[in-house]
Each structure stands twice: as structure tokens, then as C-alpha cells.
């Protein structure tokens, strides 16, 4: 079995720093997962919507007369 501490000449202080690095990476990665979860929820809401016209502001109407003799 390889003794990493001897191979790289690491002391306890280095192991403590490595542990902090691992914790910080975990915090950053986990926060990314949660923000992706929010995006998924937003997309679901968008898929539920339907489009309809907002209204008619003008109309053209036919007018007529029959002229009798």
C-alpha cells in the first residue's frame, strides 16, 4: 500500500488544507445542483401556458342597399 503522505511529503497541516478544499468544492457543486432544479420548475410552468389573442381593436363591416325601381 502506498503511503501518500510519505510519497508527497505531506504533513498534517496539508491534510487539513486538502480537507477544506474538498468541503468548499462540495459546497459549490451542491449549490449548482439546486439552481438547476429551479430552472426545471420554471420550464414546467412555461410548458403549461397557451397563447390567445389579446383583443380586436378594429373591424371591417359590409354595408349594402338594394335599390328598387
Amino acid at each position, binding site marked *: 500500500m502506498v503511503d501518500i503522505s510519505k510519497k508527497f511529503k505531506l504533513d498534517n497541516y496539508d491534510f487539513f*488544507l486538502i480537507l477544506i478544499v474538498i468541503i468548499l468544492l462540495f459546497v459549490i457543486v451542491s449549490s449548482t445542483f439546486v439552481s438547476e432544479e429551479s430552472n426545471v420548475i420554471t420550464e414546467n410552468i412555461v410548458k403549461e401556458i397557451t397563447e390567445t389573442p389579446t383583443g380586436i381593436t378594429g373591424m371591417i363591416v359590409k354595408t349594402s342597399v338594394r335599390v328598387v325601381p
Partner: protein
Amino acid sequence: MSKYTPLLVVIVVILVLFLLYQNFESVITSVTGLWSAWNWSWSNVSVGAAAPVVEDVLLEDAPNDGGSNVIVLYGGSNKTVWCNATVVDDNGGANFNTSWANASIFDTDYTNYQSCNQESEWDNNMCYFVPNETYNANCTWGARKNDTAHYLNCTFEMRYNANYTNETSNLNWICTINVTDADNYNGSGTNTSNVSQLLAVAVDSVLEFGNMNVGDYGCQGCTGCDQNPDTVCEDLNHTVWNYGNIQMDLALNGTDMSGSNCGGAGYIDVQELHYNCTSYTNSWSKMSPLTETSTSVNCTGFDLYKSTTPQGPPADSTKKLPWKLHVPSVSGYCEGNITFNAIDGR
């Protein structure tokens, strides 16, 4: 200390700075949620009973036609409006009361807004409340954001006659969401949006004067009319609907009446068509001549109010626009078009 120590210190500093650059609070909250999701028992912290907090309330329409904090209504129908929020309870997920929540939206001119918290107070113009069995409106608890936060979505079907945002009086719409938790602590949150002005019109599809003689003023069936332009007689009334939320006037123009079956002179000048925007049963000579397409004239004073029906589908707001026609030396069947445009009538 080893030769790697300075490198490790630098990495730690960079990661800490990166975390501070991001929203540190949300990051910590997220990690808390993950601990719980994976059922890790890392530590036991005793948190006292805390009231739920309603955060990030957002009142907007769906689809969001007008952009952030602007609600665009649909003419003659309903528009779905969302009031969404995130509910945070520091006591954790078990403390949420997901069987209860309510919400109201009301305009700020509604003096009795404190009563907008029950189904009976529903008013299409100014107050909507959920849950409401009659209108199938409710609040729905959505996905869990993390262990201490829950999404909450409340929907309203806003009628087309809802009051618009008035810039001069600063009238706008407020959404209030109320929640409670297992400890019977209450929480609420609000957000404000504008409702845009809506112009929407409908008119009878045809304006038929029927059978008339050369020289007549009026229409077939216009009682009292004859071949004198100054004779006071009945009108041919044409119905106009206001399907918006503001008082409406009209802008009118038209074409000559002609066609392959229109003999004699071959056409009736557009100005032989007369209307009156403000009164009825006038003589043809006291009414306004229609103008051709390129010179639209505003029919001010028509003043067709919006529907004010408080509950249920809005009753139609309609008004008759009176018309008379003078028939010159033509024969046969003559036809043309009239264009009705809705304009702001306030």
C-alpha cells in the same frame, strides 16, 4: 509545512473568494437541503419555533405578454394570472402546512381591500380571492426548493373588465399570499403589478339598409323617414360591444358603395352614409357624413363604458350607433365597407 502548503493555501483562498462572490446565503441553504435529502446526521441544532416567511412573491400573467410586473388582459375572455412565492420555514419540511394557503389580488383603489379575503367578496373589477370553488381557483404547493423552503403557486382567472393601472392615481394591483405552519404561526408576502389598458371591440357583422327607393333618406323600416333630408325619423342601429377595460370611442371610415350589380351612376358616395355618435333619431342632415378610408374621423362622445359586472362572466357592454343612407340615382344592389376602430374614449 511542506512544499505543497503554499499551493493548498492559495486554492483555499480562491474557493472562499468564489463562494463569497456568489450568493453565500443561498449556497449555505442549498447545502443544508442536501444534507437532509441524503439523511446525513452531521449535527443536531435546536431551532425554536419560527414563523413561515413568504419570499420572492411575484404577480404576473401567463403567458407573460407585457413583461415583468405588467399584466396584459385578453379582450372578451379571461387571462390566467399567477401569484407565486417561496415559503421558508426554518423549522424544516415537517413543519410546513401544505394543506392550507390563500391569496388575494386587488387594486389599490379598492377601499375595502381588507375584505378581499373571502369568496363572497370576489369582484371582477377589483378583487380576486383563492381558494374559490365557484371559479375553480386555488393555491398549489409545488416542488420543495430545499429542506426549509417550498414553492407555492396561486392562480387567478382575471376577467377582461378588471381595472387597469391608472398612472395619474398610481392605481395598481397587489397580491397577498398567506400561509400557516404546523405550530400555527402565520406568514404573508406581497408583490405589486400593473394591469394594462385593454381596447377590444366587436360590432354587428353587417349593416344592411334593405330595400330603398332613389331619393330616400333613412333605411328600409326606418319609421317616419321620407325623401326629405331634414325629416326627423328612426335610425338603422348598429350594435357595438366593448370587450376591454377602458371607456371606448370609435374611429370610422368607409368606401363608396358599388359593385357589378350597382347600376345607374354605378356607386353611392361614402358621404351619403350618415351617423351620429352622441344622439339618436335625428334627421339625415343633422348627422355626420362618413369619410373615405384615408381620412378616418373620430366618433368622440360615443363613450361606450367597460363592463362592470362584479361576479360571473361580464355582461356585454353594448351601445347602438345610428345610421341613415341617402340613395342617389343608382339601381340594383350596391355594397361597400365600413371600418370601426376602437380608440380611447376617456
